[in-house]
């Protein structure tokens, strides 16, 4: 039986060869970028040792580069950039609220517990 309450949104998501070319070009660009970032990260890790004075800076660089990589994967590869704005918010906003809260509370607690452990050891 034909159901009239189901709408096939993907039927309208097609594109032609010309648009495909543009999309593929973007995909290859992101590939090279992600690879370059990974190479840079490994290079930084190999050259700068953990007891170097600028290591904290390198750590933050790793975090920023990772978030950059993650952003490209989510927005280009997972096509979140092509979705409607409200879908983006519904996915990203709750996630960031929960994860930032989790990071905050875990770090806060860890700092306190370390203080206690160091005091008694």
């Amino acid at each position: 039986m034909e159901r009239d309450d189901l709408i096939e949104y993907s039927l309208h998501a097609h594109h032609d060869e010309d648009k495909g070319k543009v999309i593929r070009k973007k995909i290859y660009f992101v590939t090279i970028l992600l690879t370059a970032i990974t190479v840079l990260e490994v290079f930084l890790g190999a050259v700068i040792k953990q007891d170097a004075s600028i290591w904290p800076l390198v750590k933050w660089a790793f975090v920023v580069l990772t978030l950059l990589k993650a952003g490209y994967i989510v927005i280009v590869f997972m096509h979140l950039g092509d979705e409607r704005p409200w879908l983006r918010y519904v996915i990203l906003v709750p996630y960031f609220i929960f994860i930032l809260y989790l990071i905050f509370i875990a770090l806060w607690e860890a700092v306190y517990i370390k203080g206690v452990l160091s005091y008694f050891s």
Partner: protein
Amino acid sequence: MGGHSVQLDQKALWGGKESPFQVSYGKMMMWFFLISDALTFGGLLVAYGFTRHDCLEAWPIGEETFNSLPFLGHGYPLLYVALMTFILIVSSVTMVLAVEAGHRMDKKGVIKWMIATIIGGFFFVGSQAWEWYHFIHGSEFGKVELSDGSVAIVKGHFGEIENFTVTVAGRHHKKGEVIKEDLMHTFQHAAAAGHIENEIITLHDGSKAKINKAKDHDLTLIIKKSGSRYKSDKEHRMITGKQAHDLYYGALYSGESNRVIYGANLKQNEYGPQQYAQFFFFITGFHGFHVFSGVVINIIICLGVVAGTYHKRGHYEMVEKTGLYWHFVDLVWVFVFTFFYLI
């Protein structure tokens, strides 16, 4: 009365009809599933950070722990993990190319890129299996407890064991016999159990044999836990040269058990605090399980593409949905790579 009135179908209104997001139910649920899964991985990595911060012992350094390549041995910090990352990124790219081909209704293209993705997935799972094998079996030197109670990891090139020459006969081996099989395994087992004293190894059958071994090169001890004499602070933690050699073999050939630990299991490991191995097994294992299920799902969907199921439907949304899952696996690995291996 002119014109015509439109009869609104109340049932259709209650059913919601148009999605405000303009996506299908399936795609949206895939996104919601991925959010929950991302929170799970987020929780695991946060727990890792929590444990690491609270650990009073020195935490292992990624470049020192993971520095081997297949067939090439040691001395390549993080290259193997970087290669794994690259494999996963490439398989993510082939997946997105399959989705793009699907948008052009190019069935052959979808099949081609999906097969490439599946191969990439198998390569990644295989790489992870190799890494686990290596992590469990450990280095050739192991972690050693020195005479003063300090604990050190060891770097350098292990001189090959040439043979064992039996000096005292046992139940199986006769005096003067030269044993050439399974040397490394026997050696490590005996060293951990304390069955080696002054270059004389006691074998399973009770026979004693002399160890003939090539010289080690660049033997370096890195003190991880201070003892009464050797300290783990920055200036003093590295011990090299003859002193390192004497200290290491002093412990190895002491005839005491548990002076050296090789590899990792759930009770002890050579790399550092026990939680480190626990998190390694859990986080990379959980991720590897995701990759494995991703490969299985990709195979099932690829069979559907070959059968023409989605072509008849008029769109390749199923490929897009599995693609979302596959990219997510890549996304998680990017974070595991940074927080477990790099930092």
